[in-house]
């Protein structure tokens, strides 16, 4: 028996049917027939086929708001993830967003492909082919092409990160041969694509000789930190999120920031960085270290933060939009002029919802905001 399945099966036996999961779930509030508690109960009562054939298995955001509060610590995202692969094998597949292009792009990266992943970096700064620090850029070059219609340039995140690293005297490795981290394949139940991508990435990083791999994307970070060891074994390098790296290294790097007109900011915790990886303080420390900057918290913050409404580029629906609108309104209520996100997908999803809303709040990526505030000589 699959050890993961055994563990989850054993773990869900502890369910006391308190319903805190369904009460905490942002999807359950919008879709009345979606209930984490009921899904656990279905499996306990051997009605697993109902779960396998239904649409609900794909509606979960895997945001972990439920498991954060579960008194018996059932890892609901893990429970869902294990069953999604079985559902896919049985022919129950998710409704992919954006015509499925992002899943297809990930699939193409399991092959021998010539990618031009570093074209932006040649203009943005200095990088190397080998070295101690590897900057894992992730899907940003692909998002940059896909989401132009939202007037967003997700590559600004990567450019800002490279600018910051160069200012600190770090010339990171950036590679054309990097692959998608496999996060979306994993959460879409496509474990074979996930494993292949993981193997290829480990090969690329190994050949660069890096001892530390830094991520600006929370999904890449949590996938390497939590899911790569589970699926492909222990990693021979240190995995750090860029906010951890910057909050540790920036204070001693002699980099200074200037004040700005948009000074009151609020921070949206991405679920991958917060609840799944437990990184809450480093991004806040970075924002608070900027001169004349006031960080105001939204009503639901840290482990109670609301998800951005969609995950793994699938099942985007009116439910996703309702969650996004709720989050933007919550940000507006803080009185902040700027909503800072630390995840490219949160930025894309919230910007998409905001484009149809009457809201003045600006949505800026954390690294773009930091780079914007760098002291100009």
């Amino acid at each position: 028996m699959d050890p993961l399945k055994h563990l989850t099966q054993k773990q869900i036996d502890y369910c006391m049917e308190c319903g805190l999961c369904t009460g905490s779930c942002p999807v359950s509030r919008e879709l009345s027939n979606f209930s984490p508690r009921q899904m656990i109960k279905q499996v306990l009562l051997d009605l697993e086929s109902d779960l396998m054939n239904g649409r609900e298995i794909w509606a979960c955001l895997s945001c972990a708001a439920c498991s954060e509060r579960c008194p018996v610590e059932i890892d609901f995202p893990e429970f869902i993830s294990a069953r999604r692969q079985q559902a896919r094998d049985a022919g129950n597949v998710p409704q992919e967003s954006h015509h499925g292009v992002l899943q297809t792009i990930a699939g193409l990266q399991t092959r021998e492909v010539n990618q031009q992943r570093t074209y932006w970096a040649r203009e943005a700064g200095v990088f190397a082919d080998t070295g101690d620090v590897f900057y894992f850029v992730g899907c940003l070059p692909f998002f940059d092409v896909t989401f132009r219609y939202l007037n967003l340039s997700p590559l600004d995140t990567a450019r800002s990160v490279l600018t910051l690293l160069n200012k600190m005297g770090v010339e990171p490795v950036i590679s054309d041969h990097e692959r998608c981290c496999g996060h979306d394949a994993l959460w879409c139940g496509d474990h074979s694509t996930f494993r292949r991508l993981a193997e290829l990435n480990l090969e690329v990083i190994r050949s660069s000789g890096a001892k530390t791999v830094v991520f600006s994307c929370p999904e890449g970070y949590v996938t390497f930190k939590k899911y790569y060891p589970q699926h492909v074994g222990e990693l021979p390098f240190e995995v750090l999120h860029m906010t951890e790296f910057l909050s540790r290294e920036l204070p001693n790097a002699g980099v200074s920031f200037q004040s700005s007109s948009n000074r009151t900011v609020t921070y949206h915790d991405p679920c991958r960085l917060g609840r799944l990886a437990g990184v809450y303080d480093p991004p806040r420390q970075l924002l608070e270290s900027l001169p004349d900057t006031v960080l105001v918290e939204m009503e639901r913050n840290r482990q109670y933060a609301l998800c951005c409404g969609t995950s793994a580029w699938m099942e985007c629906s009116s439910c996703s939009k309702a969650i996004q609108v709720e989050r933007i309104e919550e940000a507006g209520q803080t009185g902040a002029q700027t909503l800072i996100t630390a995840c490219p997908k949160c930025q894309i999803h919230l910007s998409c919802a905001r484009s149809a809303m009457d809201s003045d709040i600006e949505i800026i990526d954390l690294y773009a905001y930091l780079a914007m505030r760098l002291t100009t000589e």
Partner: protein
Amino acid sequence: MASDDQPQILAFVCNWCAYAGADLAGVSRIQYPTGVRLIRLMCTGRVNHGFLLKAFLKGADGLLVSG
């Protein structure tokens, strides 16, 4: 089936022009490579970038959108 050394070309063709053209080519007994496969659409406006990428994922060597 086409032989392995022949490129596999997937063609998205419009019912009202390119498909009619391919049909006329057939009626006129004009040969074209067997590696070309046609997908007939009522309008090539139906094609989106998802179709094109997926064709490459499924093993196409080249694509033709004609309409």
